């Protein structure tokens, strides 16, 4: 389970470089998220483009990641694959996290918001 971090136009992006966020990596996901976002200045976009599957443990880890960010900073999700989107819809977590079709769309939207 690796997560990488970059900043694009002032917004932090965490790329999940793993095909699954499931019970066997949920704890590592949370730990790595904490490490890579420690010095991030503002909101964070979680790029899920490579993630083909998430289970309820993985979903719990994403919620836990959201709580790790200090007050006032948000977590948005981008590039959900069909199985990830399905789990988000069924658990209504799509009402908790802003969701973007692609990472580019997520970054563009923030650009517009800051204009």
């Amino acid at each position, binding site marked *: 389970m690796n997560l990488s971090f970059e900043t694009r136009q002032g917004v932090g992006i965490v790329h999940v470089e793993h095909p699954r966020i499931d*019970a066997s990596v949920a704890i590592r996901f949370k730990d790595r998220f904490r490490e890579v976002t420690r010095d991030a200045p503002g909101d964070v976009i979680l790029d899920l483009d490579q993630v083909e599957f998430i289970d309820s443990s993985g979903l719990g880890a994403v*919620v836990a990641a959201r709580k790790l960010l200090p007050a006032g900073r948000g977590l948005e999700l981008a590039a959900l694959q069909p199985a990830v989107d399905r789990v988000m819809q069924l658990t209504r977590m799509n009402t*908790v996290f802003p969701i973007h079709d692609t990472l580019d769309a997520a970054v563009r939207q923030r650009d517009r918001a800051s204009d």
Partner: protein
Amino acid sequence: MTPLTRRSGSGTERQISVMDNTPITVPGKCPIAPARLRLDLEASPDAVRAALLDIGDRLKTWGLSKSQQTDTQIVLAEALNNVVEHAYPTDAGGRIRVEISRTEHHIDCAIRDSGTPMSEGPLPGAALPAIAATAVQDLPEGGFGWVLIRQLTTGLRYCRVEDENRLTMRLRLG
């Protein structure tokens, strides 16, 4: 005699032997052959992941839509994770036996283990954890597994038979 392979609408492959002067009738719709998969795995998160990947490969050959494959995977992932976490909570672990079968209208999954029985009463997951209008720090990090199972199945049954937990789950196709 020339063997021809054609792909039918339902995705199954048929071989047609073409012989001189032999009339061939192609049925309008081919019956879907029942399919079955049995697995016996160790109760650990890594073994569950490996099993789900194997199951995913097999489901691709059963003529299911992508979303039917996804839903079957979600249901099995949650049920197997529950066994790992709750039926075998200690490091001693145990075995899980899985049987998945596909008939024309359903996918049936049967999961058996020899771990701790479930507590009596209704199965969990009747309601989603409360998320509306809650503060970020109060968002639930668990309680979604049975909710997913309940939402995606049309039949769900748990029995304790002698020293065995038996969970059966049915997904409707179409």
